[in-house]
């Protein structure tokens, strides 16, 4: 029951993009096409869960006994960077079309604050191994949910004759704003 509440919290109330405003640049960058948004969500899901696991184990086996907790951020970035490099190679080999479509945004995951945010958050909140896995998995699902909804809306806006000044990023940010407004309805859904 505890894990269920944690999952709902990670996915809806504490949604990475729309409530915590993490990972905004891929959110705006990759959501032009639904297919690339899907690809990006899968890549982020894979990297996030893997990164959280690796960083969590490293923290508790290496940094904590040696009292080097302050090295946390640097080490996490190093791990995430190499993981993303790995994902990039795998994707270029397995599905070049998707690799081409994602383009610049794939290496961008390294500096994606959502992944680093989840990794550090798991440590900050002192989650055990299983809660950390649930938290990162459903956090990534929340990220995917927001990204897919947003990509659907942006694809629909392609047929809208918006005034010149609002085309592109401006209208997307407004849509994102209204989306997060709607997500605020979930606030107070789960105590604590």
């Amino acid at each position: 029951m505890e894990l269920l509440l944690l999952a709902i919290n990670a996915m809806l109330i504490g949604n990475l993009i729309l409530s915590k405003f993490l990972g905004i640049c891929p959110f705006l960058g990759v959501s032009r096409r639904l297919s690339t948004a899907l690809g990006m969500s899968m890549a982020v899901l894979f990297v996030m869960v893997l990164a959280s696991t690796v960083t969590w184990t490293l923290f508790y086996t290496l940094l904590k006994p040696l009292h080097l907790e302050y090295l946390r951020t640097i080490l996490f970035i190093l791990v995430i960077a190499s993981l993303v490099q790995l994902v990039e190679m795998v994707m270029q080999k397995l599905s070049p079309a998707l690799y081409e479509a994602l383009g610049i945004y794939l290496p961008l995951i390294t500096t994606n604050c959502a992944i680093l945010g989840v990794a550090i958050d798991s440590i900050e909140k002192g989650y055990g191994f299983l809660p950390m896995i649930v938290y990162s998995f459903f956090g990534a699902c929340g990220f995917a949910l927001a990204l897919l909804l947003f990509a659907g809306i942006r694809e629909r806006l392609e047929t809208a004759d918006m005034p010149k000044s609002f085309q592109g990023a401006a209208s997307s940010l407004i849509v994102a704003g209204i989306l997060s407004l709607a997500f605020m309805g979930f606030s107070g859904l789960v105590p604590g």
Partner: protein
Amino acid sequence: MSILIPILVLTGVGVVAGVALAYFSRVFYVPEDPRVDRLEEILPGANCGACGFAGCRDYAKGLVAKNGDVPPCPVGGKAVAEKIAEILGVAVADVEDQVALVRCAGTRDRATTRGTMVGVRDCAGAALLGSPKSCRFGCIGFGDCVGVCPTKAITVYGGGLAVVDPDLCIGCGLCVSKCPVDCIGMVPRDRRVHVLCNSRDPALVTRAACKVGCIACNLCTKKDPAFVVASNVATFTGVTCDPEVRFACPNDVIVHTDHTSVLAFVESEAARADYEAEKAVFKEKEKAARAAARPAREPKNAGEQP
């Protein structure tokens, strides 16, 4: 000494990561041609798609894949073509610097319309119903070409006719494929003389449809062989010609851009007025020249009379 431990930990994890990545990069190696990036730098980057590829990067890939055997980049022209040849080490077909020309002078008052067209907003739609003009080859004037021109070189003037400004035109040819009645053609940038008609209908139909239509009377070809008549319409193939030739045309369809720009010739009344004046002067001179030649033949006719 306690500073040593963090350094060791960090370098340790760094080394482990490095080795892992090196190993994986061998496992997942995918070849990518470096020439694609170099080609992309020298391309104009207009992404206009005139070469038939989806943007310049795609064109660069096409160049490498087909080793240069692709249509030339019209926007880049000669300069870009040479650089491509240099990178690919292959001879690229020479690219003529071209510009678009609307081959029609039938403004609303000169061309006859058929029925009153209602609820139509673009040329493609109008062409579906059969053009609003009796001449089915003439410019419809709703401006589909204006919308598609990347450098806004085409504007539709009051008389309902599209005119291309040669200085702004980069020769990408997007308007040529957009026009539903194909009355826009590509002509060399330095050509001075144009025949402003595209009607391939026989003379009878063209005369009924438009006051300034080319009825393939061949008078201009007699004056200057650079004019060629094919399927009922004349086209000029040279660079320039004697300005007198344009007065030979009974329907004033030929324009000489040294004297009046295409726009002025089609639109402004002033330019039309002094064109008529020049033509009248030329006609006088020609009549006088013909009269002078006639006396030489007079006695012969007189002789024959019984």
